[in-house]
């Protein structure tokens, strides 16, 4: 019912091509997250799925039906915007019910849906307030409520948490995860927050420059990245890259990568460096080591102390080294 297929989607604004041959299959009930650097075309792709923007070429299929020419309101979707986009002059109740009213649903059904959504999001006490009289978190919940009320086949979220403070972000993240479990609807979610992507997604779509770089579950992307971009994008602190000559690799290998958490600090070894900076995070410690001019990050569990400027050796297992060829593609052995 709620599946989504994107087939050969291209999009240009004038002469600028912002989406290049996007192909994607999303199964019903999946939680899919688009991540990628700013300007890579995530929002544009989401707006094409919603029907707010026309693709230059290609097909969008929702629940196996080609929807290219359907207006947004007939596509069976609901969207939550980064800026909430609540109607300022309408009460919370009217904000949530407007879509169903436009679709000429019976009043009784509308009231039922609104009450259900309000209940789910603990908004019942605020139903008669205007958006201006709510806090940021409450406004975001109303925006989510407005989407739930429509009972869509497909939820679209465009960076819904980026205007919230850190504590509220965690709460709302948990709430969205719970909603996904309860509603069992397909969700497409755009973010550039790693943690959101890793914790919420069934499937992550990593984009760069209007292209899909890799699609996979969070752990697939973490353990088995296809290329240097995905390897560097997923994981925090980011993977260390250094020229392969440090490890004496074959000719075609240009770059080697090592996750900060895969390195330990030893008293002796093959590669040595100088400690240049320490970050104490409480639960773990980030150590920055200068190895022949390249800065390597090491993430150590617990609280450690080292003297800045002291010489140490890197310890790691060869199995943890990712290697990439000249074009940045992963070389698997």
């Amino acid at each position, binding site marked *: 019912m709620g599946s989504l297929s994107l087939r050969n989607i291209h999009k240009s604004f004038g002469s600028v091509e912002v989406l290049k041959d996007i192909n994607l299959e999303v199964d019903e009930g999946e939680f899919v997250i688009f991540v990628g650097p700013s300007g890579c075309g995530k929002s544009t792709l989401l707006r094409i799925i919603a029907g*707010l923007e026309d693709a230059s070429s290609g097909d969008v299929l929702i629940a196996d039906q080609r929807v290219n020419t359907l*207006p*947004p309101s007939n596509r069976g979707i609901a969207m939550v915007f980064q800026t909430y986009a609540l109607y300022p002059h309408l009460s919370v109740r009217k904000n949530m019910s*407007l879509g169903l009213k436009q679709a000429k649903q019976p009043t009784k059904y509308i009231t039922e849906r609104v009450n259900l959504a309000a209940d789910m999001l603990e908004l019942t006490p605020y139903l008669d307030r205007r958006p201006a009289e709510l806090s940021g978190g409450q406004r975001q919940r109303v925006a989510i409520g407005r989407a739930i009320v429509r009972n869509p086949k497909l939820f679209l979220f465009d960076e819904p948490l980026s205007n919230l403070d850190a504590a509220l972000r965690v709460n709302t993240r948990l709430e969205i995860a719970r909603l996904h479990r309860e509603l069992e609807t397909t969700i497409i979610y755009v973010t550039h927050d790693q943690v959101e992507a890793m914790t919420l997604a069934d499937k992550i779509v990593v984009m760069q420059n209007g292209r899909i770089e890799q699609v996979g579950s969070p752990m697939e992307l973490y353990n088995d990245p296809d290329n240097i971009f995905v390897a560097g994008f997923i994981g925090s602190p980011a993977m260390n890259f250094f020229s392969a000559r440090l490890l004496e690799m074959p000719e075609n290998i240009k770059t080697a990568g090592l996750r900060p958490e895969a390195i330990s600090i030893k008293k002796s070894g093959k590669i040595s460096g100088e400690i240049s900076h320490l970050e104490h995070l409480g639960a773990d410690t980030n150590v920055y080591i200068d190895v022949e001019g390249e800065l390597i990050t090491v993430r150590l569990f617990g609280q450690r102390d080292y003297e800045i400027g002291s010489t140490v050796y890197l310890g790691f297992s060869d199995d943890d080294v990712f290697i990439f060829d000249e074009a940045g593609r992963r070389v698997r052995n």
Partner: protein
Amino acid sequence: MNKVRHNPLNIFAAHAALLTYTVIALFPVIVILVNSFKTRRSIFRDPLALPNTDTFTLIGYETVLKQGDYFLYFQNSMIVTVASLFFILLFGSMAAFALSEYRFKGNTLMALYLAIGIMIPIRLGTISILQIMVASGLVNTLTALILVYIAQGLPLAVFILSEFMRQVSADLKDAGRIDGLSEYRIFFVLVLPLVRPAMATVAVFNMIPIWNDLWFPLILAPGEATKTLTLGSQIFIGQFVTDWNAVLSGLSMAILPVMILYVIFSRQLIRGITSGAVK
């Protein structure tokens, strides 16, 4: 910012400047109002004095109300001003919405074309306008005036309103589209209320010149039935004798309706309902 605002010296300076300006701006109006209640003699002998039992008279108002058809002129002015404003705001905001919201070929060109009218005074085209009105049989009708004033007001209205409409959150309009609102409902229900302050500005800018205009009423609609207030008041200003009592009384009464309209619009100017719509 708060510090600056709460500094008593700054508050004093700001108020002094504002008060001075208010006095200067209001002085002529007050003089007109005060003198409209005085006899002709005391107007000239002591123009700044308040009327007392000796000098108080309503003769000016009586003349105005008796001579000419003051109420008809008044009504004509009102119809022309209100109708022109209504259509300037309606068409202006619709054009502004199209220019700011939709991407189409020639968008920039169209915006420029519409803005040219700001720089070229419509009076340059008076003769052609008169010819058109004669040809279409609209001479001596209020419609002629209304049409001309709409054309005169639209360029600035489109320019100001499209600038404001660009600032209305795109997400808000998109949320409306997803909820199934038509483009017309999005325009009337979501966008217009948010640009109300800009609409009021445009209304105030256009209202005064239309109400006070002498040129087009004189050329296009000088007939007795279509005279506007400004044109009608001219009968008291003669080449040799001017009935100052009547002129001052006529002017005083003409201020009132503009003031009422202004109060209505300035309320809108102050009110902002955007807060909380978008972060």
